[in-house]
């Protein structure tokens, strides 16, 4: 950069110097950081506990669909809901799409490959730390400085924490949309449907009280289901 500035200053004719300056300014413009206000950010949490692992093939389709719809500058991360999900190591793949379509396509292919590998090699976890995953998602999307922030939870929403883990905090979800995808009914829910409804209302209350929007999408085949 210093050499470039030096070249501009030392250029003899003023016209040539002006041309160099214009090129420099244009180059500067093209190197500026993306305008985050218009970018979308998605943090998708995948439940890997118990029998829900079987649903991951469907989750992979959702991820691929989202990848296809994302545009330049958008941020996308997929993380697993583990025993303790408030951790960077649980992020399976993350990407901020490049402005050039060819690079963005390459990033999308790599992302899809990572997810494919994960789905094929996944081992179910003993516990389900949804709150930790949401907290991690909030941190990630806040750091990404995107315009529209969406956290997607691909889970049955049954939180099961290991001993010693405390998750009784209030979430700060101003400007966030939290979508619960494919919330399957458990065997206990079939016996007592109220348990399922209570689970949904509990999470809804938690998100809304934190300032976020809450949505439940069980029919993923609807065209508007995954519209951001």
């Amino acid at each position, binding site marked *: 950069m210093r050499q470039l500035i030096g070249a501009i200053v030392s250029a003899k004719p003023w016209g040539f110097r002006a041309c160099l300056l214009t090129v420099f300014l244009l180059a500067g413009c093209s190197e500026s950081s993306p*305008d985050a206000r218009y970018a979308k950010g998605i943090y998708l949490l995948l439940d890997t506990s118990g029998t829900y692992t079987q649903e991951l093939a469907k989750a992979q389709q959702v991820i691929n669909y989202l990848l296809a719809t994302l545009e330049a500058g958008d941020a996308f991360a997929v993380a697993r809901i583990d025993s303790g999900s408030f951790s960077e190591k649980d992020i399976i793949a993350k990407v901020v*799409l490049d*402005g*050039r379509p060819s690079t963005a396509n390459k990033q999308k292919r790599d992302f899809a490959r990572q997810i494919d590998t994960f789905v094929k090699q996944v081992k179910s976890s003993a516990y389900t730390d949804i709150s930790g995953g949401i907290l991690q998602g909030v941190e990630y999307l806040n750091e990404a400085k995107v315009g529209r922030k969406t956290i997607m939870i691909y889970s049955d929403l049954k939180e099961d924490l290991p001993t010693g883990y405390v998750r009784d905090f209030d979430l700060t979800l101003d400007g966030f949309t939290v979508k619960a995808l494919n919330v399957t009914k458990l065997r206990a829910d079939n016996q007592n449907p109220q348990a399922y409804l209570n689970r949904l209302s509990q999470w809804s209350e938690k998100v809304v009280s934190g300032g976020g929007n809450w949505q439940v999408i069980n029919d993923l085949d609807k065209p508007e289901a995954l519209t951001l």
Partner: protein
Amino acid sequence: MTTVNLQAALGSWPTFLILLLGATLALYLARQPAHQTIHAVFFALYRMLRTCACTVNKTRERLANRNRDVLLEQGRQHAERDLDKAFFEINKFVQKDLGGYPQLQRDIQETVNRIRDDYDNSREVPTAAPDWLDAVNAIATIKQTDPAAATNGRILEQIHHSAEVQHKENLAAYRKSTANRHRILKAMTPYWRKLAYSVDEVGNRLKEITTRAQSIDQQMLKFNEIVAGSHQAERALKASSITQFVIAALVIAVAAGGAFFNFHLIALPMSEMVGSAQRIGGVKVADLAALVIICLETTAGIFLLESLRITQLFPLIGSMDDRVRRAIMICASCLLLILASTESALAFMRDQIALDLANLRASLAGVDSAEGDSGINSWIPLAANMVLGFILPLALTMVAIPLEYLLQTARTLLGSLAEILLAATVSILRLTASGIKHTGVVVIGLYDLLIAAPLWVENLIRQKQRKAENQYAAQTEEF
């Protein structure tokens, strides 16, 4: 509390009547100043609106004069340009076609001379009568009884024989000379034809000159009318400008459609070059870059047409030295060609990116590559994209012509619209002023209606007084 009391007070009939009477009396006593005040207020409003109408009308007149001047000036410039063009063309025609007229005249003269010579050569020379005819006559008149008659008869026979031989010779010579004449006359035919063709050609050229002269006469007539500022010329120019505006607007709309299509053709590949994540004022940099390229093409087209003196959006370029103008023309043409080639390359790149995207989506959807499955030869859209990418920028250069017309006629049209708007404002102001004036009269009448009872009493008293005065006047007269 006060409101309740007032309502209670008004609720009782005696109080209400007292108040009514008091108010009527007060209104009656204040009639004169009230009338003056109402009149003053409404008259002031009336005068104010009239003044406003007058001012707006003056502005409208000034605008109308200005519009007229502009229209006539534009018309004059156009007429001058048309006349210049017509004179230039006729000058070119005269130099090119009639410049060879002296040569043509010489050719005609030569042909005529040749024909005349041939004609002279073909003229028949009458054969002279033989001199000895008188002698033959004399011998023939000698009587047959004369002894010398026999001799004469032999002489005559001899003469007859000689005459027949000579006649045959003469006839042969005559036939020969006639054949020669016919041959000469036959040789004259091409010269006649050439002469007729030359004369026809001259006639056609003169007819063309006459037609052009008539056209110039008409243009001169129009020019004179514009210079004189006649209403007919003004009306014609106004009608012409509206038509031109509509046509130019339509063409510009078509060009905008072309530009829109062009934009979509290059916006995606531009994102490969400058990236599409960055935004300026909410618009993607790639979109802005594509727009800049289209604007550059249009600008280069405008400069090209300006340097060719087809348009006159920048009179400075048209009035430049021919060398500089030619340099601008070459630069603009080169820039256009470069940009058109760039767009063609971008169109190629767009096809590649679209194919890559389709492949990615297919792979994400778990389907095999979409390439080759469609049954459509991919080279056809690719070639069409590239051709369009090259042609559209060149086509966009032509937008300068309708743009010039649009700008020129929009001034006249907007001026006319403003004139109509001001005229409508004047009418509304005048109508409002008139309405206010009459409203004042109505309000005064309503005021009098409120105090109708005391006025009626006053009228009665006045009538009585008048009657008494009349009686007094009558008694005075009797006295």
